[in-house]
């Protein structure tokens, strides 16, 4: 077992263990940082797999994403510091079974498939090739991703802003009635759905 293998197994262990701890820790902020750790480990594995740009970009992007995630955790969760034990799960057994099953099924598929052997030549200028591909033959796909991101930005601003379609979101934002001063159109929400624990 060479140094590369050793490093790979160590990083894999970090990725998997921290990925599991995400759902087992009491502190929400720690959970997002554990997920970040998992991403960093995967990013480094990707760098080892001869795709330096993708690997480092994963680390870069995920650092930002998980930072935002941590902020949202503190905002929306009670007990973000994990001072009390934290276990908010439903259909627990089913989920565990599904997770294990997914892993077992995928592993079986991996072990029983014969993949073609055609490794990357270490001398290939992969980053250069990627750049040419992105701005050459696959420009349309790349641009589509860009437009999608723009739409996402607009969409998330609209969704999260206070002013809803029919008035302030937190003041009901009820649609106007079908006749003047009538009942608001559409189905009425049942009571509940409220926020019990905050």
């Amino acid at each position, binding site marked *: 077992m060479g140094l590369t293998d050793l490093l790979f197994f160590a990083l894999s262990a970090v990725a998997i263990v921290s990925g599991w701890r995400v759902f087992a820790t009491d*502190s929400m*902020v*720690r959970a997002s*940082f554990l997920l*970040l750790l998992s991403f960093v480990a995967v990013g480094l594995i990707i760098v080892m797999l001869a795709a*330096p*740009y993708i690997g*480092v*970009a994963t*680390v*870069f992007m995920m*650092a*930002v994403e*998980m*930072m*935002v995630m*941590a*902020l949202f955790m*503190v905002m929306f969760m009670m007990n973000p*510091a994990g*001072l009390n034990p934290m276990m908010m799960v439903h259909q627990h057994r089913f989920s565990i079974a599904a997770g294990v099953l997914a892993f077992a099924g995928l592993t079986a598929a991996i072990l029983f498939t014969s993949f073609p052997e055609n490794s990357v030549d270490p001398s290939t200028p992969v*980053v*250069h090739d990627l750049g040419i591909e992105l701005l050459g033959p696959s420009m349309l796909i790349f641009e589509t991703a860009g437009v999608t991101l723009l739409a996402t930005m607009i969409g998330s601003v609209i969704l999260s802003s206070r002013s809803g379609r029919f008035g302030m979101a937190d003041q009901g934002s009820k649609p106007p009635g079908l006749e003047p001063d009538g009942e608001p159109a559409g189905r009425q929400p049942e009571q509940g759905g409220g926020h019990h624990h905050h």
Partner: protein
Amino acid sequence: MTTFLAALLLILFLSVGFAGAAVADRAIPAFLAGQTAPSWRLSLADAVRLLQTQRIRTEAPDALLWWLAPALYLALAIVGLAVIPFGQDLVAIPSEVGIVVWGSCEALTIVAVFMFGWSANAPLALIGAYRYVAIGLPAMLLSMFVLIGAALPAESLGFIEIVEAQRTVWNVVRQPAGLILFLMLGLAISLRGPFDYASPEDLAGGVTADVSGPGLLAWKIARLTMLVSVSAVTATAFLGGYLGPILPGFVWLLLKTAVVLLVLIWAGSVFARMPPARMMSVIWTMLLPLSFLMLLVVGVELLLWG
């Protein structure tokens, strides 16, 4: 062999840069305040004082993250410096995506600062941490656009190619506003002056408000190291890095880094800090479009004359 030599040079660069930064960090503010320059011993004496001070624990801190944050900050500063070439083939971590590596270091620095403020479990520290994230993320974003502008003429994301592409003309000539934007990022990432939203006076030290003794010392060391790193990156991306006549490249880089470092410390002492909400709107509505514009200008220039 060259990697080994580069690693040695990295250590040398770090120690020289750090010592210089520690002295300049006291001398320049003292000079600007119209006082006599303090002795270089003062920084050391202060460090020794902190080392001998008790490390206080707050109530129910996230002890692990509190320890890790300064270490992470320091490690990021060192990794960021390690992708900088000291000569044509002298890089401690040769990477063809050096800019992206540096970008990751910037992003993770924000995480480290947040960790530090969060884990103390104290209100002022947490407010400082939150605020820093709000300012740090967009500042980092625009620094990446500026860096892409520096990478365009090189047609590469690696720092060596970026330096080599500056043999004809330094990037600072191509995008002077880019240099200024990047210096702002430098202030933000090394937590000083007008961009120090993490540990300002109005929060009684913000993220450091509850840290005493060795913990505070570690944080200060990491902060100064990051200052050295970001100065070196600025010198490499905009001022031609190791390029220069007669003297060896390493010395040139060191000199240019020193200049940037002095400018950063000076700027950190003479410009006012806006309240965060105002700074936020300035970044998003003025500086970010400016960075797009710089990118566009460089692109057009390369299309026409490149």
